[in-house]
């Protein structure tokens, strides 16, 4: 394809919403006020799993400003939240399945009164058996606590079967195996969940919600209220971070607000405290994986066996899609002829887990990339060399038998970080100054962009582009800004297609009544889907405007007929007209200046029985090298620097893309070193930022980021997806660097000082024993 000359795409435009955010004027959900508004607060299950015998608001009633108690009896629609399955009731009738689950709500005149009253509502209950460990849940004699499949306590299971694994292992020259675990990750978006529900006179409901998936909110609210979709309008508020955490669960929060608002007939605001957000909103699934790799004597991978279990918690939500992604990518970005993968999403009596940046991949990537390093060591190969020998290249087959036809730059990425980091020199250095040991480690990953075979029914998106009489442009999309810069990237794509100056283009936050259901803004699909929908909408407008511009230029004396459109200007023979003039002329000619666009992702074919087929339409790629300093006495690891290289197709806005990369790396590093959500006897121990700590300025590593833009022709201006790859490979790169630094393999995330300290002690003891 011929290289296009681009005026807007590929440039670092400032954020469209930068000013209002810098001045503190951006209106997030909690900032919005409506006349006669009341406040709701949740009454939460205090124990892991209970039978509800009664709920009493006798004491709560005495709180000044108390309005009413809301229970399942107030639900006029279906009491089952429509996600993938219907196992999660909006409000439980008989059984609550995890500590922190919303059992009822109270409504009051102020937020403080509502919280106070909620704390005084008494739940009478009986404790029921519960399960904390997902491996226990899979045992035949486990009590049944959940599950939505033919297997007890299982929400989803997948398999990939390819070749003859048993034979591969029999004939292998080298074999390794290991069991790896990763803990929860809390999204830690700075803005907690929240919704405002405003009853409309026609029985409808308008919702203002912080969300990355406004259309999931429509699904939830319509179901809970038992009203038709055309009576539900969801307006996305400025959203203070998502990372997947505002994919599925905002629908639940909004439905709760809507149930309350429907009961009292007044607007109701429901804003979560940080503690509540910890206790009941979605998390990254804890992962457990047992993996085996085999290789021949030249170091080619020949086989891989995986058993992968996700701890899904008390309800299924979207575990199946998370697990599907983990399954497809579970053997790593390598060509392996013989594969046997079995994966399970297991029920436990804990917080339901869901979407989180990386979506089932970081857990398994940590496991398999750690083990790949062990295999390379066993063979006596450099980890980079070993990877280069086995990595997927264009034309080769993934684990699911998908042939990578276009846009794959994985080996180039590895070479890039190898060179920039000085890998070849450093890898055998094992530098030690006092108690500080330095080390370096690598990881690679590939990431299927979009929802893939399991979520393909949702993989479509809409947009509307409207050119006003004064030449300003409104772009409405169904994909959400949550901090990543979608408003700006979408404006750039519209500008590019229309040749409209950036400052004239405004992208609107999502209003579900303006643009048809565009699926969720997740899976790194925002740019790809929303961008393509905008192009679809803008294309006919472009044709019309360019024709008008040509006429105008000829009218003004242009003769060559060769028009160049760039930077918002149309030019012929040195004569120019501006986009604004062209747009005004378009209106004078009574042209249609507003269009809708609709984009559907290419078809993917996939067989669930053997896990073979095209799992995703296209893949993004990453290679990460981490350099660490390990204090061998205290076990404390400091990540000094991360070199990362990404192939995410065309970079629409380098400044925003770099921001995504740096943020993703730090979120990945923070998970790998610090973040440690804990349960004791079914109760969350540290639902706060005091004891669930995230990386701060003093923990951040130095970043060195490289983009290698392998263009993807299906993508908008050949972009793929960016959001998630930066996080995925960080944990294994750090773990491999720790191994390189001090010789110990830590097989669970977080890579806590206590674990490193213990492993070093054990290693030293073993050495002494010899």
């Amino acid at each position: 394809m011929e290289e296009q000359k681009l005026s807007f795409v590929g440039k670092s435009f400032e954020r469209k919403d930068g000013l209002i955010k810098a001045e503190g004027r951006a209106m997030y959900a909690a900032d919005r006020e409506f006349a006669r508004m009341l406040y709701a607060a949740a009454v939460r299950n205090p124990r892991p799993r209970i039978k509800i015998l009664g709920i009493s608001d006798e004491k709560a009633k005495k709180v000044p400003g108390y309005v009413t108690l809301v229970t399942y009896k107030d639900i006029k629609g279906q009491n089952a939240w429509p996600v993938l399955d219907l196992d999660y009731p909006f409000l439980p009738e008989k059984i609550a399945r995890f500590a922190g689950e919303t059992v009822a709500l109270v409504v009051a005149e102020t937020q403080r009164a509502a919280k106070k009253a909620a704390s005084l509502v008494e739940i009478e209950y009986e404790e029921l058996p519960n399960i904390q460990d997902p491996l226990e849940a899979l045992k035949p004699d486990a009590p049944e606590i959940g599950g939505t499949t033919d297997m007890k306590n299982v929400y989803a299971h997948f398999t990939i079967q390819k070749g003859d694994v048993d034979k591969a292992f029999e004939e292998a020259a080298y074999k390794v195996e290991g069991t790896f675990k990763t803990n929860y990750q809390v999204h830690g978006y700075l803005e907690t969940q929240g919704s405002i529900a405003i009853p409309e006179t026609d029985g409808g409901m308008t919702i203002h919600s912080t969300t990355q998936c406004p259309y999931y909110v429509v699904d939830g609210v319509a179901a809970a209220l038992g009203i038709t979709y055309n009576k539900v309008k969801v307006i996305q508020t400025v959203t203070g971070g998502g990372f997947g955490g505002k994919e599925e669960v905002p629908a639940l929060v909004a439905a709760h607000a809507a149930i309350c608002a429907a009961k009292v007939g007044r607007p109701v605001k429901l804003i979560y405290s940080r503690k509540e957000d910890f206790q009941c909103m979605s998390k990254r699934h804890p992962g457990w994986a047992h993996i085996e790799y085999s290789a021949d004597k030249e170091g080619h991978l020949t086989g891989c066996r995986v058993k992968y279990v996700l701890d899904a918690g008390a309800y299924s939500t979207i575990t199946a899609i998370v697990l599907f992604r983990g399954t497809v990518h579970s053997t790593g970005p390598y060509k392996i002829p013989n594969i046997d993968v079995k994966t399970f999403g297991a029920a436990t009596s804990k917080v339901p887990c869901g979407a989180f940046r990386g979506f089932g991949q970081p857990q398994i990537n940590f496991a398999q990339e750690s083990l790949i390093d062990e295999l390379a060591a066993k063979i006596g190969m450099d980890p980079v060399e070993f990877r280069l020998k086995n990595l997927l290249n264009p034309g080769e087959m993934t684990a699911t038998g998908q042939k990578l036809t276009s846009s794959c730059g994985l080996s180039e990425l590895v070479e890039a970080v190898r060179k920039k980091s000085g890998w070849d020199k450093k890898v055998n250095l094992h530098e030690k100054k006092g108690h500080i040991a330095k080390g370096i480690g690598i990881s690679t990953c590939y990431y299927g962009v979009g929802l893939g075979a399991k979520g393909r029914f949702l993989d479509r998106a809409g947009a509307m582009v409207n050119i006003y009489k004064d030449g300003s442009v409104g772009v409405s999309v169904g994909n959400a800004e949550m901090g990543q810069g979608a408003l700006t990237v979408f404006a750039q794509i519209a500008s590019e297609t229309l040749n409209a100056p950036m400052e004239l283009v405004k992208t609107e936050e999502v209003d579900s009544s303006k643009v048809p259901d565009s699926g969720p803004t997740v899976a790194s699909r925002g740019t790809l889907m929303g961008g393509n929908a905008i192009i679809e909408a803008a294309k006919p407008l472009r044709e019309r405007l360019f024709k008008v511009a040509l006429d105008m230029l000829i009218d003004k004396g242009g003769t060559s007929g060769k028009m160049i459109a760039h930077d918002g200007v149309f030019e012929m023979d040195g004569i120019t007209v501006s986009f604004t003039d062209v747009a005004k002329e378009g209106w004078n000619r009574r042209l249609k200046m507003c269009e809708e666009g609709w984009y559907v992702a290419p078809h993917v074919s996939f067989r669930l029985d053997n896990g073979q087929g095209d799992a995703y339409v296209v893949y993004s790629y990453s290679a990460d090298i981490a350099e660490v300093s390990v204090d061998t006495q205290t076990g404390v690891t400091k990540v000094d620097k991360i070199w990362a290289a990404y192939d995410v197709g065309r970079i629409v806005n380098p400044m925003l893309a770099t921001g995504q990369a740096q943020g993703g790396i730090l979120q990945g590093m923070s998970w790998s070193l610090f973040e440690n959500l804990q349960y004791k006897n079914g109760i969350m121990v540290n639902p706060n930022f005091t004891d669930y700590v995230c990386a701060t300025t003093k923990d951040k590593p130095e970043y060195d980021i490289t983009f290698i833009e392998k263009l993807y022709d299906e993508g908008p201006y050949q972009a793929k997806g960016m959001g998630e790859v930066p996080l995925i490979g960080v944990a294994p790169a750090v773990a491999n660097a720790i191994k390189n630094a001090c010789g110990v393999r830590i097989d669970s995330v977080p890579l806590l000082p206590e674990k490193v300290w213990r492993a070093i002690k054990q290693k030293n003891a073993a050495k002494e024993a010899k």
Partner: protein
Amino acid sequence: MPCNETMKKDFSVLHLDCTVNGKHIQRDVPSNRALLDFIRLDLGLTGTKEGCGEGECGACLVLLNGRAVNSCLMTVSHIQGKELVTIEGIRGRKGGLHPLQETFMKEGAIQCGFCTPGIIIASEALLRRKPDATLEDIKLELTGNLCRCTGYEKVLSAVETARDKMAADPDYKEAE
């Protein structure tokens, strides 16, 4: 300054007397009014955010007599007789945007924006106190401000750029 006349006899009401964003405010408020509620609900200054309610994230930072404090942990009694500045009161010396706001926008230091007011407040407090703050000073000063989007790199460099801009601008040199 606080004195006996500042409270009703049953101590339920505080005769608040303070300055908010340069404006003198006198009014009666319940003595136990949380400062964040006073700022956000009573004054309608919603730029100050509640991120955690426990002083751990810094989204609620305001300047009290020029120092950054976590408003989510305070009550109105803490600002009696003092000068409070919220993000809405952060302005350049000649009006318009403050150099911190300009560089945060220009250099991509803002993503979701929820932590931004608090980080700008913390940075302003530092640069007032220490106009020649080093990168290390900036890092240390911002350890109480969680940002989950940016990885901090662009935040730190934006503060450095603003520092340099302010150092080169005579309007800022003669700061208080």
